[in-house]
């Protein structure tokens, strides 16, 4: 009998890749603003549904974007930009106002829960609650075999994206003055302001970058498995667990945590029902919160 291990490995890496993308954006925004941004999940869904709209729902747009591979790439780009725009607007018209009022973390949480619910409802109204896929039929799926495990083209793209984004973001934050400013805001926002750092502009850009990455995550999920208006919360929670166990506020930590989570989840259900996945994920979170609350890599 063939071993199941290679396929479990492949599944773990793919799940980890998706969680990592969510964690990358979440961690970046959390680092600068220190609040639990629930809307991050629905922004991923918005990215996915934007691509769904222009490649599937709207026929005239679809005929344009589905002409060639270039069209698909262009559609993905628009999805990412749309997610970034929603992130930007949320910050500008909601979170910035709350920061100006020095609102408590509780207010931030409730406000972002409200925004999350609204946006999710909009998606359900516009696109129904039905499950939708972005990719073509099952017939034309390209697959690769790596060490005996099978992964699809989309899944390969997930993994390449994670590695590239992690490295680019990590180096950018470490080397650029912008990264230093983000770090300063993260350490002490008040002092950052009084020494003349343009904190609001920088936080805006952080929302744009973080939301763009979330949008990409949602799009890739759409191509890999499919879209549902309610997909945001699940994605967000996994991204958050990944961030916490990896080390919140740390770019590499979030990715490390994401892959650890992917592996534990997928190998955890090796001999038992798949229903256990979420219980295992949250169990891992609880273990970390008790044993190593700062995560694997400290900031």
């Amino acid at each position, binding site marked *: 009998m063939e071993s199941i291990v290679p396929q479990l490995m492949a599944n773990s890496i793919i799940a980890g890749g998706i969680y990592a993308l969510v964690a990358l954006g979440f961690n970046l925004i959390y680092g600068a603003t220190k609040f639990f941004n629930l809307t991050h999940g629905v922004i991923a869904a918005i990215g996915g549904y934007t691509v769904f709209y222009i490649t599937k729902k709207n026929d005239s747009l679809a005929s344009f974007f589905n002409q060639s591979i270039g069209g698909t790439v262009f559609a993905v780009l628009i999805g990412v930009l749309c997610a970034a725009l929603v992130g930007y607007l949320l910050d500008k018209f909601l979170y910035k106002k709350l920061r100006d009022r020095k609102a408590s973390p509780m207010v931030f949480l409730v406000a972002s829960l409200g925004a999350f619910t609204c946006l999710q409802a909009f998606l359900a109204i516009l696109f129904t609650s039905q499950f939708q896929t972005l990719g073509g039929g099952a017939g034309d799926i390209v697959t690769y075999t790596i060490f005996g495990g099978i992964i699809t083209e989309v899944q390969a793209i997930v993994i390449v994206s994670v590695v590239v984004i992690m490295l680019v973001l990590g180096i950018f934050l470490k*080397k*650029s*003055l*912008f990264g*230093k*400013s983000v*770090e*300063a805001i*993260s*350490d*002490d926002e*008040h*002092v*950052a*302001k*009084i*020494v*003349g*750092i*343009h*904190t*609001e*502009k*920088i936080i805006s*850009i952080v929302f744009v970058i973080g939301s763009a990455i979330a949008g990409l995550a949602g799009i890739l999920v759409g191509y890999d498995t499919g879209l549902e208006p309610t997909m945001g919360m699940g994605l967000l929670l996994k991204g958050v667990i990944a961030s916490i166990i990896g080390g919140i506020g740390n770019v590499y930590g979030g990715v490390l945590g994401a892959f650890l989570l992917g592996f534990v989840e997928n190998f955890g259900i090796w001999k038992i029902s798949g229903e256990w996945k979420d219980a295992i994920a949250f169990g891992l979170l609880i273990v970390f919160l008790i044993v190593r609350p700062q995560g694997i890599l400290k*900031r």
Partner: protein
Amino acid sequence: MHTLQTKHLTKHFDTVKAITDLSISFEPGKITGVIGPNGSGKSTFINTLTGLTPITSGSIGVAEKVELTSIVSNDMPVYGITRTFQEVRLFEQMSVLDNILVVTTCRGWFKSIFEKHSAYHLAIAEKVLKRVGIWQFHNKLAVNLSYGQRKLLEIARVLAMSEIGKAQVIFFDEPYAGLFPEMVKLVSEIMKELRSEGKTVILVEHNMDLIRELSDKVIVLDSGTLLAEGNANHVLSRKDVVEAYLGE
């Protein structure tokens, strides 16, 4: 000429009357000592003038003409106001050098995406860190500095703000607390230098010898109100001032 003045400035926290009806002006090229017993509102006074705590009532006059009833932190560098904190506040996870570079280099947010610090900014950072004598630790993380070194780094940050022209009015909230004697001397030299550069220096301090040595004018706060104001020797010999201090 006044660079900073308050008019009927009041700050109440629920029931605590931290500051009540303070009208005070600060002059350039002078060191104003602010004294008063613990809890008399000295730090709160600074906090209201630097955007950390909102004002209950009254106003703040900056740069001669502008009259503010609220001041937010982002405005401080614009008006050339800067400060140190009684409990030192640094960018803990950044190196000593980066703590200064992030101050000297930050200009446009857009440029910051593409730009690193230039030799010019590095030179300023080196200069101010050498001035306070902690250049040899420039690669250390701020969080790993000793208590005294942390205080000095905060002073270096003020000097960096001054170098890039963003500090006309400088508040020091107990900068000497817990410093060794040789460091005390160094900080006093820096105060005098800033005064001779024409800065408006406001010094909150409990050590009366230092207040006598440095202050051109002294302000005494008691329970958030102005108890006395004037020449150091004169004010410190007043009976009510001595009593306010002893009576704490």
